[in-house]
């Protein structure tokens, strides 16, 4: 007898819920620490030093130019070998690290984009008043850049929710991992549709929140 999608969901919903919690958690960890690391990387990118710029550029280019799945495999197998201290860490942590690194590259790019979206005249005005570069950045440029950065960061979180589905490959308990669990019970196709539906509901809902955020930022700009 074949169970319907609905039957499978009713029967196994705690597994899916646990998976969803895992997905949201891993995405949050990736974007939170990715934002911290990405901010530091973006400092390299905007520094007036060619060596630092190059390091930042290479970092961002490599992490954005290679598939996350490849990065995860490398993190999973080679990170513990390359960095002995990581030997003490479990495999799960290595996969999470690769999520964080990947996210940090995108966040660095978001911050760079946000800063360059601010009119050059703002920096010139601040500096011509005799403001230091640091003050001009902190008091004039960043408060304006943040309007562009915040919605993009939220979108990065939504993107990460989908990206974390790859972590199931490494036995991390997130939404996609429920597929593996239920496949062991010979449930092949029903879980896939349930999983797809849950991703869709979550990303559409969060996208609506981002739209609201953008609207509010636009209003406060006009006010």
């Amino acid at each position: 007898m074949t169970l319907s999608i609905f039957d499978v969901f009713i029967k196994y919903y705690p597994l899916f819920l646990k998976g969803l919690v895992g997905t949201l958690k891993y995405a949050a960890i990736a974007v939170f620490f990715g934002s911290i690391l990405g901010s530091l990387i973006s400092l390299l990118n905007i520094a007036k030093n060619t060596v630092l710029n190059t390091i930042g550029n290479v970092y961002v280019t490599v992490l954005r130019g290679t598939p996350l799945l490849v990065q995860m495999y490398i993190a999973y197998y080679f990170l513990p070998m390359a960095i002995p201290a990581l030997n003490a860490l479990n495999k799960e942590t290595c996969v999470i690290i690769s999520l964080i690194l990947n996210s940090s590259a995108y966040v660095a790019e978001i911050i760079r984009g946000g800063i360059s979206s601010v009119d050059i005249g703002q920096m010139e005005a601040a500096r011509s008043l005799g403001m230091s570069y640091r003050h001009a950045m902190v008091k004039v440029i960043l408060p304006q850049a943040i309007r562009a950065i915040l919605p993009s960061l939220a979108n990065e979180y939504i993107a990460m929710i989908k990206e974390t589905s790859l972590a199931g490959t490494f036995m991390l308990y997130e939404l996609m991992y429920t597929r593996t669990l239920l496949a062991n019970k010979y449930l092949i196709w029903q879980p896939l549709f349930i999983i797809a539906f849950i991703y869709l509901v979550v990303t559409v809902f969060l996208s609506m929140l981002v739209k609201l955020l953008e609207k509010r930022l636009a209003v406060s700009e006009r006010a």
Partner: protein
Amino acid sequence: MKEHDKEVLIKVEDLHKSFGELEVLKGIDEEIARGEVVSIIGPSGGGKSTFLRCLNLLEVPEQGSVIFEGEDITRLSKGKDLDLIRQRIGMVFQQFNVFPHLTVLDNITLTPMLEKKLSRKEAEEKAYALLEQVGLIDKADEYPSRLSGGQKQRLAIVRAMAMDPDVMLFDEPTSALDPEMVKGVLNVIRDLALSGMTCVIVTHEMGFAKSISDRVLFIDDGVVIEEGAPEEVFENPKSERLQAFLNEVL
């Protein structure tokens, strides 16, 4: 305003500036005295804005020097020293460049509080006095998006004035304004000039340049082609290029 003493405030020597292959300034020597009002006229792309922007090192010249109050500022290391110099050189831009995320009042008080360590009370008292002068006192708590172009430019002028500069540089201050806003902004600049402030004004407003200036420079093709008292420059131009330019714009 014409009986200013002859103390040289800004001295420019052999100024050269290129953008890539394009040589924009081809050797300018100039002296601006304290209290003097100098207008710079000339065709677009002739180098007048670049010249002005070299005076506070927004553009860094490749060759030559800018001596401000006796100090060669092209030799200063970028950083604190240059910031201190720039605090004494106010600048007003064509596109206003007011800070959109700050109220009118905060636009004015931000830099004095940050860089001159004025208390909020001191900075605000000064800001209110300046806003009163330019008729923006009732806008103090508004954001710039609620201001007209003319009001934004007047805000930009008092924002620069709040640093107590020794000279004010104006880079085509009325070129981005609707025609009906121009007069109000020019009146503010005129009041400043009459109060004895040294002003260097890049402008296309020939009538204004003629009536307000102690001296007019005609810059084209990266050099000062002709200069002199406004009557001479406008009534009796000597070079062909200035004659052609004036025919074009008057």
